[in-house]
Every structure is written in structure tokens, then in C-alpha cells.
């Protein structure tokens, strides 16, 4: 293929680097081996006390050090590792001098309890603690490092320093579709001709007591399998009962196909299309008719210049919540029609959990791995089929298959629906 523009005359966007960190391991190879072996990375939480929690398991990444140990530093470390791998594979630019823009999906984390406690202690207050006391603690000037650490823009700023990206980095959130949005922003920037390359990252290291409890209070998490962590996430199965939080990062180096070819880079695949649609129905629930999900899927396929029949595998959002999986299946059936019953679809989250802010990027990376390896990772823990979801979920065992075009779905609280079309070759 020598085309450098897509069917709409826009610069074609190639992927030349992929990086991954999840609870299953560090790097593309470790992750791919574990995923295709159907291994789960979900385990009992070791990081903090689990007394009293309704859900005490998660796909935390426990093999990465962070100092001080807190969500932003952990998120930064995961992003670094994933981006190091992606940039090295792309072989683009010199070390610390990446010739393109940076888009990072970061968890919206704030000052955490250990820091809040330290500041309260410094205030000297021995009675009831209030924010006036915390402010007094802050005025001691002893915690200046926390300021920088817990600003929303710091993770991206530090990554921009490390990788030497061009311009102001963008930190973004679209809740559980953030990782896909980071990629979408990169695709758009390249199509605009604003940059020849983009480093797009989704990262999340926010499994801590408050984050977990917040999801728990919304009844979003699985509570049935604390004693069987690996069996907890059951996407598309009738007995699915919620998601399990996961951690990690996914990074892609995107490049205009023209510049990738000009420098003789190996092209791993293409992001042919990105689609999105907002949902104004409810803060956490999808429109009952599935319209916004349907529109997002259609938008992505149309943006790619393809038809629904061109999709030959779906990397599902597949959280394992009763609501998501039902609505996702409904949306896909509406767009792909009867054919959807034989289009394989699987949920990486059955093994790595819901990596939240990182999910869209991790799953885009895994979609590319699926194409490159000609093998579909399974949906594990699929023992009780749901008659309402008559799909081929690649149950429990990986399967060889030639895949040329993947639809990767991401949906989030706040009516966020983002879909990517990733392919082996342009059309």
C-alpha cells in the first residue's frame, strides 16, 4: 500500500509504536502471552487494608515502584514505561526528543489521605480538624512538593519533559473512554497537519481506598467473587455483576503514514477512524434505546470510510456490569445487524479488569496486537451465557483468526461514548 491519504483525502494515520503495562505484566510480549493464555491479573488487594470493603480485589500493578507512593506518581510511572516501549519500537526521534504532540488521559486524582493526614498533623490541631487547619498546615511551607504532585497537569508535564514532546501537552478525561479520546485527539492533530506524530497515552494508577469505595457506593463493582478474584469479571455472562478496578497504561505512537514510510518505519497498523457521541440521558446510565452508543459506532465506521460489514472483530468495552454489556451488545446488533452474531467480540477486561482512564488506550494497543498476531484473546469466566446477548464472545480460550479491521469500544460515565476503528491496512 502506498496511499498516504484516506478516502476523504486526509493524512492517513499509522501506528508505529505500542507500549503496555497491566496487572498481567510489563510490555507487549508478557501481556500478550498472558492474555492469550486466558490468565487473569485480578487478585486480592495488598496495597492497603481491605477491612470492611465490599470488594477487596483489583487488577493492581504491584511490580512498579513509585516514590512517594500515590496515584499521580504511579500513573506517571505506568505511562513512562508504556511510552518508553512504544517510542523505542517506533524508533522515532532521538531519546528525549520526540518530534510530535503529547495527549495523555490521566485519572482525575486529588490530594490523597496519607498526604491530608500529614498536613493535618503539621497544623498542630489536637481537637477537631477542619480545612482551616489543613490550610494552616499548608502555610508551614513544608509540603510544597505536594502542590506540584497533585496538580492535574503534572503527570503530562513530567512526561513531556521526559519524552521531549512538542508543544503544550494535553491532559484529558472522558471518564472510562479517556484512553480512546487521547488517541482520537492524536489522530485529529495529524489529520489537521498540525503535527506529523503524536504520543497518545492512557494511564491509571488510582486503585486506592477512596476511589474504590466511590465506585463501590455507586454499586458498579462486582461483589460476588472476593474469594475467587480471577473469576470475578464475567463480561457478557448472565451472572456478571459488576466491574473490577484495574491499573496500567497503554501508549501508541501515531504517525502520518507519509512520514512513517519516508523514514522506513515498520507500520504496525492504522487508526482509520474515530467516532463519538454524547448521551444526555443520565449521569451514569445509557439512553435506554442505545442511540448514542449506536451513533458512536456508526460515526467511527463512517469516519474510517468503511461499512459495518468491514468490521471483523470487536474489542469490547465489556466491563462486566449488567447494564454496559447489555447496551453494548444492543448497540452492536443495531449497527452490524444479524451478522454481529458471528463477528467475534471479546473483553480484555475479563482478565485485566477495568483500567478506567487507561482502558481505551490499553485496549487499542491490544486490538493492534490481535491484528498483528492473528489471534483473538478470549473473554474468560464465560460459563453462563446470557440469552439476551447472543454473541460469539470468544469464550474462555483464545482462538486463531485473521483479523484485518477491529472496532474498539469505550464508554464512560457522563455520557461518553468513543469508538476507534483500527486496521491492518488502509482501504
Amino acid at each position, binding site marked *: 500500500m502506498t496511499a498516504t491519504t484516506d478516502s476523504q483525502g486526509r493524512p492517513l494515520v499509522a501506528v508505529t509504536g505500542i507500549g503496555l503495562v497491566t496487572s498481567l505484566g510489563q510490555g507487549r510480549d508478557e501481556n500478550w502471552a498472558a492474555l492469550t493464555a486466558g490468565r487473569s491479573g485480578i487478585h486480592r488487594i495488598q496495597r492497603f487494608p481491605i477491612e470492611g470493603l465490599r470488594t477487596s480485589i483489583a487488577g493492581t500493578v504491584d511490580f512498579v515502584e513509585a516514590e512517594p507512593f500515590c496515584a499521580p506518581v504511579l500513573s506517571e510511572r505506568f505511562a513512562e514505561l508504556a511510552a518508553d516501549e512504544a517510542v523505542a519500537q517506533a524508533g522515532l526521534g532521538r531519546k528525549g526528543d520526540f518530534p510530535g504532540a503529547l495527549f495523555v488521559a490521566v485519572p482525575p486524582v486529588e*490530594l490523597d489521605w496519607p498526604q491530608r493526614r500529614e498536613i493535618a498533623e503539621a497544623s498542630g490541631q489536637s481537637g477537631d480538624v477542619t*480545612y482551616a487547619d489543613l*490550610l494552616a498546615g499548608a502555610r508551614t511551607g513544608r509540603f510544597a512538593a505536594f502542590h506540584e504532585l497533585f496538580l*492535574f*497537569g503534572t503527570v503530562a508535564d513530567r512526561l513531556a519533559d521526559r519524552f521531549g514532546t512538542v508543544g503544550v501537552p494535553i491532559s484529558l478525561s472522558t471518564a472510562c473512554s479517556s484512553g480512546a479520546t487521547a488517541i482520537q485527539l492524536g489522530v*485529529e492533530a495529524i489529520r489537521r497537519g498540525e503535527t506529523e506524530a503524536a504520543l497518545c497515552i492512557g494511564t491509571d494508577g488510582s486503585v486506592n481506598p477512596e476511589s474504590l469505595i466511590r465506585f463501590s457506593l455507586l454499586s458498579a463493582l462486582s461483589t460476588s467473587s472476593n474469594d475467587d478474584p480471577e473469576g470475578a469479571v464475567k463480561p457478557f455472562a448472565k451472572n456478571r455483576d459488576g466491574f473490577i478496578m484495574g491499573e496500567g497504561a497503554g501508549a501508541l505512537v501515531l504517525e502520518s503514514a507519509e512520514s512513517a514510510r519516508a523514514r522506513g518505519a515498520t507500520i504496525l497498523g492504522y487508526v482509520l477512524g474515530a467516532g463519538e457521541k*454524547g448521551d444526555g440521558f443520565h449521569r451514569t446510565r445509557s439512553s435506554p434505546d442505545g442511540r448514542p452508543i449506536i451513533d458512536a459506532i456508526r460515526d467511527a465506521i463512517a469516519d474510517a470510510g468503511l461499512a459495518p460489514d468491514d468490521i471483523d472483530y470487536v474489542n469490547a468495552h465489556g466491563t462486566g456490569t449488567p447494564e454496559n454489556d447489555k447496551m453494548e451488545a444492543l448497540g452492536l446488533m443495531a449497527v452490524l445487524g444479524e451478522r454481529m452474531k458471528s463477528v467475534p467480540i471479546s473483553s480484555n477486561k475479563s482478565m485485566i479488569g477495568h483500567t478506567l482512564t487507561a482502558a481505551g488506550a490499553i485496549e487499542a494497543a491490544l486490538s493492534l496486537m490481535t491484528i498483528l498476531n492473528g489471534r483473538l484473546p478470549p473473554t474468560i469466566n464465560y460459563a453462563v451465557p446470557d440469552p439476551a446477548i447472543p454473541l460469539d464472545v470468544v469464550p474462555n480460550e483464545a482462538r486463531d483468526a485473521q483479523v484485518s479491521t477491529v472496532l474498539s469500544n469505550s464508554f464512560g460515565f*457522563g455520557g461518553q461514548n468513543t469508538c476507534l476503528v483500527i486496521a491492518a491496512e488502509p482501504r
Partner: protein
Amino acid sequence: MRRSVVVTGIGIVSALGEGIEAHLAAIAAGGHGPVKAEPLSGYPVHAVTPLEWDRQIPKKSDQRQMEAWQRLGCYAAGLALDAAGAKEDPALKGRMQLVVAAGGGERDFAVDGQILTGLREAADPGAYLNEHLLSDLRPTLFLAQLSNLAAGNIAIVHGVTGASRTFMGEESAGVEALRIAEARIAAGQVDIMLAGGSYNAERPDGPLIYELGGFVRRDGFAPVAERGDAVGEAGFILGSAGAFLVLESEEHAAARGAKALARIEPVVSVRTRREPGSVSQAFGEAWPKLGAARPDRVISGATGIAPITAEESAALDLLAPGATVSHLGDFIGHPMEASAPAAAAVAAGLVASGAARDVVATSVGHRRGEGLVRLTAPD
């Protein structure tokens, strides 16, 4: 081919009141905006004028589900939609996209205080924390805090459901929201967007993160340009505000009969490593990229922090010698993520009112976030 992008709706609320006219009148009158001490922290804030929430957020249930920053954003977004003649056009709002600059919501400070007090004596702090977070946090608080739920609420309340993206990163988020909105429309990637942000300063947990770094002014009002350089004097006074602009391609506006209030030029943002002189240097680099800017007015988003506020002033003296510079912070305080959108809103309002033909809005964030937004007369 780049398309020309115009502003067709301006929505702003702050200490100066509701709507662009109130802002232009107060800024023209000079002086400074009202300041009060936030009762629980004692820190000065520019509190938002009292608003009749029902006028933009008709359902009480929606008002209850939001924190103040989300209500402010929703309210300002509604004003912008009204001004753009888009409010009563569901089809248009159904394809209008959103880009929102947001931080997080306010915490439940009573619960935080009780837990911190209890943790001091708790035999098993981990178990204590779990137990109290589980029993004391309101389940819906999460949604009232999540950064992207400002956009989510605008979708729910106003039906702006094209799609939304939320940018984080303090002041920089506001600059980038405008930059990306303009760039996407100019490139034909989208026809119409609602771009802006909001911030609520009236809470005791607001200044904490910034006071950790010594960036907050502790005493009452002093003009942004005269805040000295000592910790606690130099620094910003936080301000509550919501500011949104409806941006669309010139053809799109014309086709639907919407009046172009101002033209927005490509937004320029610069990343620098903060050190003495870096702000002057950033302005020197960014200014030529604005095109042949000869502004009559500059709406500065300067914080009052030393030495960056003085550096910005010096740079503007060189780059915009004939322009009258107004520090928006004197009037509405520093609304963090919303500060560039608010400055751009006022700049667009000046152009729309005929008071100026070429206005540059500036951002120099407290830690990072340098950017310039130029609004010009559309004809």
C-alpha cells in the same frame, strides 16, 4: 484550507454578575470586583453574584446532583447557547460538541474533617478510613466531583450531545480547550462547539492545593499588578466563574443566520520551563504567531504571582504598546481552569460591543499554562 472561526455566543458569570454586558460595564467603570472572606477558611475570594439557578437549570433534581462548579458551568453554558440562538434548536445542539476545562469538584469538607480527626486516635487507621468512607460519603458525591461531569451535566441539562471532551491541567486546560476547539473547526473536523470552563472558589478546600505551593494571596484585595513579592501577598485570589463561548465556522454561522460577534484567531500556547525571564520569552515567541496583532485592548489573565505578573506586563509593554491592559483578576479573581475562557469571553464581548476591534486575552498560569487568544472584529 483553514476556515475562519467566529464567536456566536458568549456566556459568563462571576463576581461581576451575569452576562457579558455586566462584565463590560464593570470593567469600563474600573476599580475592582467585590471580595469577601470565605467563611470557613478566611481566605479572600471573589464570590459569584447570586444567581437564579432555575433560569438555566430548570430541574431542581439536576441542581441537586451538581456541585457548585458544575452549576456555574451549566449556567454559563446556557447563557452562551441563548446568545447564540441555539438553545431552542435540539438538532443543532445534538451535533454541537463540547470541550470543557475542568478540575475536580469540592470535597465533603465536613466528612474529611471528621475522618482526619478520628484517624488520629484510631487503633486501626486503615479499617477506620474504609469504614467511614463507606458510611459517610454520599454516593452521588463522586459524580458531583468527576472532572468530566461538568460536560456530562451540560449534556443532560441543555441537550448539547454531539460529544464532549474534558481537559484538565489547571490554567493550561482552559487555553487548550479554546485552542483545540478553534483548530478543529478551522480544519473542518467539526462545525460548531461550545468551549469553556468553570470554577467554584467558595469552599474551604479550594485554596489548599495551591497554598501548599504558596501561590495564594492571604490578605484582602490588592490590584493584581501591585501584590508585591512576599509569600501570602503575591499570589492569586481565587474567583468563582463560569465562561463559555459558542464557536463555529463562519459559513456555518451564516447559514443558520447567527450573528458573528467576533472572529477568533488560532490560539497560541507555549510550554516553557519556568525560570526568570521565561514568561517574557514565551510571549516573545507566541506573539508573532497571532498574526499581525495590534490590539486596542489586552484582557490579561495574570495571577498576581511574582515575578511572572511583572514579566507579563513588561512583555506587553513591548508587544502591545498602544493597548490598554486590564487585569481580569482585579474584577473576577482567578478562576483557575476557567480563567482563559473568561478572559476570551470578555475579549469577545469587547469586540462585539464595538469597544475594540482587536483584543488579545492572555493566560500565564500559576505554575504553567502560557497562552494567547486573539479576538478581532468579524467584518
